[in-house]
Each structure stands twice: as C-alpha cells, then as structure tokens.
C-alpha cells in the first residue's frame, strides 16, 4: 500500500475530482467571459449557493440513512413566510430569536416527517410526497394570499445579505455564505468524528446489521429528519433575508435542486456513503454553471439540459470510477494484512 493510498480514501478522490471540475469550469468561463474573475462573480455564485447548501447538508443526513426528504422546498417556503410575517409584525424582535424560531419551526415539521417514517413505518417517499403537498397547502390557506414585502421588514434583516463578515482584501465573505460554510464545517466534522453521527453511515450501509448490533434504527432515522427540517428552517430564514419579498410560492421546486446537489456531490442515493462537503461541492458546481451560463449570454433555456447531463455524468462516474477505486484500495489493504505476519516472523 503506497503512501497515497494510506492517506487518501477513494471518497476523498471523488471530492477532489469535483473540486477539479469546479476549477475547470471557472477557468473555461473565465476565458469566455470578460471580467469574469471579479469578486462580483464570486458573490453572485456564493449567495445563490448558500441556501441550497444548507438544505443539502440536512438532505445528505437523510439520504445517508437510505431515506429521502422531498418536503424540504415546502419547509423552506413555510418558515420563510411565517417567520417573515412574524418579523414584519414585530419589527423589534431579537434577530437571534427570529433565527431560533425559524429553526424550531423547521424542526417541528421535520418531527412530523421523521415520526411517520420511523414509527409509522411509512416509506419516506410516501411521507414526504404527502407533506410536500400538505405543508405548502397549509401555508397557502393560512396566508390568505398575502405576501411578505421588503418594506415591512426591519433594517438589520435587509442589510444581512450584504453584511460582510470576513473581508479578505476586497473579497467579501458575506453573512449568508459564511453561515453556510460554518454549517458545512460543523456537520462535516461531526459526521466524521462523532460516534453518534457514524450511526447514519452504519444504518445506511446495512440496516439489518445495524439493528443486530443494537443501534437505535428508528431514533437515528427520526433524528435525521428533524435535523433536515431544522436546516430547511434555517434555509427558510436565509431565503427571507436574501429576497425580502416572500410569496406563498417561495421555495417551490427547491427539493429538486437540493437532491441534484446531493447526488452530484457523490452521496449514494441508496444510503451509507457520501459526505456533507461533497454535497456542498455539488451545490457549488451547479451554482457556478447556473450563474456563468447566464453571464455567457447563452440562453437560460440551455441551462437545464446541461444540468441534466451533468447529474447523469456525476452519478455515472461515481458508480464506475469509484467502484474501481474502492476495489483497488481493498486489494491494497488485503495485501497489507497478508504481508504483516511475514514481517512479524523475523524479529
């Protein structure tokens, strides 16, 4: 087993290749578009990616456990609208409290999904297809077709998306993107090192085995949906901050973008493998393509066709290349084990 194989896992190669793909995309677009390498481009991509990324982190956890949450778009719209209405009527509300309310509201909707999947034993696709319609429907009914408008919101919320958290020279890392980065780092570290979080992987790889060794299967699945709901709630708050104007249609169809980001990011749709960072890279790649194709003056109508092809290629490369890589790594490891006693026998 050579040095490279000892220090890098196949999954990390996948992430590196995604990163490479993003770099290539940026170089190609940079040579095609005048004035592409500016911080404006960066900001535009970063702010369009931030919301998708946060929701995709939650979706990743759910997909890891062999489930799927199709209701995220409705949860984002639900929280964006109701937290927006709340802030609009109580302009003096503590900003932190508003964020916490958004997260709790999302988590509450996630509790419904999780309980129905884990204890109701209803397949996740059925539950979340239902709640996709239910959450949106309740939102439309309760709203009375009113909208949240920017002029009813307090100044801090309107300024938030432009708030510059980390000025590096003239490069801004704006608040929403910084928030997304923090979430990704937290969840990546958590999912990699917390023994609790490794259960997501264990259950997704082999539910029967996980149950036999005594992992609380239902509890973990439930928890994944609650976290996904909570992050979707946060995504709803971010959407409110970014757009200001929130109609009852906010976030409709977002679930497809989120699932696309997760799938492009190399999270196995059958559970058990994939990382939060991969999902973010997937979101960034899609966001870069979206924003750049738009700048290129290519008709926006081409975007979806390109995106569809990209998802297909990402999944195909994942299946074909990664399988070979894993086999290579496994062989190297076997060899290592086989070689070990020989060395030990001659002290």
């Amino acid at each position, binding site marked *: 087993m050579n040095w490279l194989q000892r220090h890098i896992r196949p999954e990390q190669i996948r992430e590196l290749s995604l990163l490479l793909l993003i770099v290539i995309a940026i170089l190609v677009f940079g040579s095609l578009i005048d004035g592409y390498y500016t911080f404006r481009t960066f900001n535009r991509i970063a702010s369009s990616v931030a919301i998708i990324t946060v929701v995709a982190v939650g979706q990743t956890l759910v997909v890891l456990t062999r489930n*799927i949450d199709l209701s995220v778009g409705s949860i984002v719209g639900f929280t964006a609208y109701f937290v927006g209405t709340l802030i609009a009527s109580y302009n003096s509300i503590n900003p932190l409290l508003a964020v916490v309310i958004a997260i709790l509201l999302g988590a509450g909707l996630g509790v419904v999904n999780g309980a*129905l999947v884990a204890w*109701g*034993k*209803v*397949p996740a*696709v*059925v*539950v979340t*297809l*239902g*709640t*996709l*319609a*239910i959450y*949106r*429907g*309740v939102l*439309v*009914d309760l709203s009375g077709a009113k909208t949240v408008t920017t002029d009813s919101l307090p100044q801090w919320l309107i300024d938030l998306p432009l708030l510059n958290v980390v000025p590096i020279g003239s490069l801004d890392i704006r608040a929403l993107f910084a928030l997304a980065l923090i979430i990704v780092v937290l969840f990546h570290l958590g999912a990699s090192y917390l023994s609790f979080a490794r259960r997501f992987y264990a259950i997704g790889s082999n539910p029967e085995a996980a149950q036999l060794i005594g992992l609380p299967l239902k509890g973990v699945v439930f928890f994944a949906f609650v976290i996904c709901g909570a992050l979707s709630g946060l995504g709803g708050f971010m959407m409110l901050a970014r757009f200001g104007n929130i109609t009852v249609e906010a976030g409709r*169809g977002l679930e*497809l973008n989120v*699932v*696309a980001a997760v*799938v492009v990011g190399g999270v196995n*749709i*059958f559970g058990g493998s994939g990382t939060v960072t991969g999902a973010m890279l997937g979101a960034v790649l899609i966001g870069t393509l979206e924003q750049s194709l738009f700048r290129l003056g290519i*008709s926006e*109508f*081409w*975007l*979806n*066709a*390109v*995106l*569809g*092809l*990209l*998802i*297909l290629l990402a*999944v*195909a490369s994942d*299946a*074909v290349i990664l399988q070979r890589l894993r086999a290579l790594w496994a062989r190297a490891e076997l060899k290592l084990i086989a070689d070990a006693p020989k060395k030990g026998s001659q002290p």
Partner: protein
Amino acid sequence: MTNAAATLKRWETLMFALLVVIIALNSLDSRYFLSIGNFINLFQLSIEKSIVVLTMTLVIIGGEIDLSVASVMGLAACVAAWTFQHGAPMPLAVLFALVAGVLAGLNNAFWIAYIGLPSLAVTLAGLIGYRGVARILLEDRAIGGFPDWFNRLGQQAMIGPLTASIVIFFALFVFFAIVLHGSALGRLIYAVGSNVQAARYSGVRVGIVKTDLFVGSAFVAAVAGVLYAARLGSVRGDMADGFELDVITAVLLGGVSIFGGKGNLVGVGLAILVILNLRNGMGLANITGNTQNYVIGGILILSVLAPNVWQDIRNKWKGRGT
C-alpha cells in the same frame, strides 16, 4: 402467500369503500354530481395524468421509479409543436414526438439497465434535462394553430360521449392489465421488483425487463403529452411541469409498494377514481385546488399509515393474550 393475498384484498376493499363514501357524499352535496356529463368531465380534466399512472404502476412494481415522465410529456408536445412550426405535416410531427419519447426512454434505460445506476438519480437528471431540451426548442414562446383534426382529437367526443383520450386510457388500462397480470413479462416485472438478485440468478434477463419498463413509460408519456397538446390547442415549454408528483401519488395510493413487487392495476384504477371524485366533489363544494392538494397528500400518508398502525395494535393485542 395467502397472507399477502389477504392484504391486497383489504387494500382494494379500503379503496372501494372510500370511493363509495366519496361518491355518496358528493351526490348528497350536489345534484349535478351523478350526471354522465360530470363524470366525463371528471375524467377528461386530468386524463393525461391518468394515462401516465398506468405505466408508472408497472415501473414501480418493477422496483424502479421514473421521475422524468412529466418532462417527457412536455418534450413530446414541444417536439410536435416545433416540427409542425418548421413545416412538417401534423401526422409527421406527432411521429417525431413519439420518437423523441422512445429516445428519452432508451436513454433512461441505458443508464439504469446497462450501466446500473439508480433510477431515482437517472430520471431526476431526465426530469431536468428533457425539460431543458423542451425549453431549448420553444424558449418562452407558445405554439398553437394546429390543424382542426388534431385539436378535435383532444376536445371532441369520439365514441358516444367519450373523447379519444378517454378511449385511449381505457384501451391502455386493459392492455397493461393483461401485460401485468396475464403475461410472462408481467410475471418477470413482479419477480424483478420483489427481488432483483433472485430474479437474475433464476435466469431472468433483468436488463431487458427494465428496458421494456422505461421505454414503455416514456413512450406512453409521449402519447399523453401529444394528447395534452391536442386538448389545450397550444404548447409551451413548461407544459405538464410537476405532474410526476400527482402521478406517483395515484400509484402509491393504489396500494403499490414503493419498494416494488407488490400492487396491482385494479387498486390503482380505484385510486384514480378516488382522487378524481374527491377533487371533483371538493370542487363542486367550492373547496380550492390548494386544499384539495393537501387533502390528497394526507390521504396518501394515511392510506399507508393506517394499516401499519392497525397491524401494530393487533400484534400488541396478540402479545398480551399469550
């Protein structure tokens, strides 16, 4: 086996009882409900979705899913409109649309059956990609002005009071019922859906079964897309956007297991009737389309949840007895 048969029986009884209750409530609520005209109207208003539900049933029983159907409907309609606008006679344009559908299906099948990718991912790419191609063709224009015979196809009664779309739906229902419940291919679909490994080791050519499923699904979606264009009389790039969710809802409500191998067309047929009557009844009672959507979402979840909870309670009861 008898246990499974009993469960299936119970499912259809449940659906049928639900249907009877809904029809009874509706006819009490509005005296217009129990008229032939209303029933035809009921079918006609979402007949294209109902047609696609039939093939989706086969795909899900086969253990797969096809999220791209609505985009294939849109693509087929756009191909027909685009070729017609560029001078092709309408029959040829329809032929092009159907060919586009078959190509989309072959593309799905290639990645799923021969490369071995999950159908959820492949058809999600298809959902986005085929819609993209449709948009490239029409951009944000709407194309109409089709020949009269084409528009009549979608709008005018053909046999008695039935329109062509409704006739096609019933013909396809019978056809797919025979395929699924009376043919070798049907048995293979159940076999692949319940245990793909076992099917493969028993010598089933799984790749061919899956290819049949996805090409069939896309072809029927293309037919539905053309019929939709004929009914509306004009085509736009975002046509049939989001239909896939309604289609899948109907199939699952029909008692088909999302994990494959279980379910039948009778249950799905009843589910279509339940949804249509429910929507129609609520519409006559002035309940908005939005409320209708979430009532159906709730029924979808309850229809799977209720038997599970019932089973749990029975198990607990038995446990206490012994």
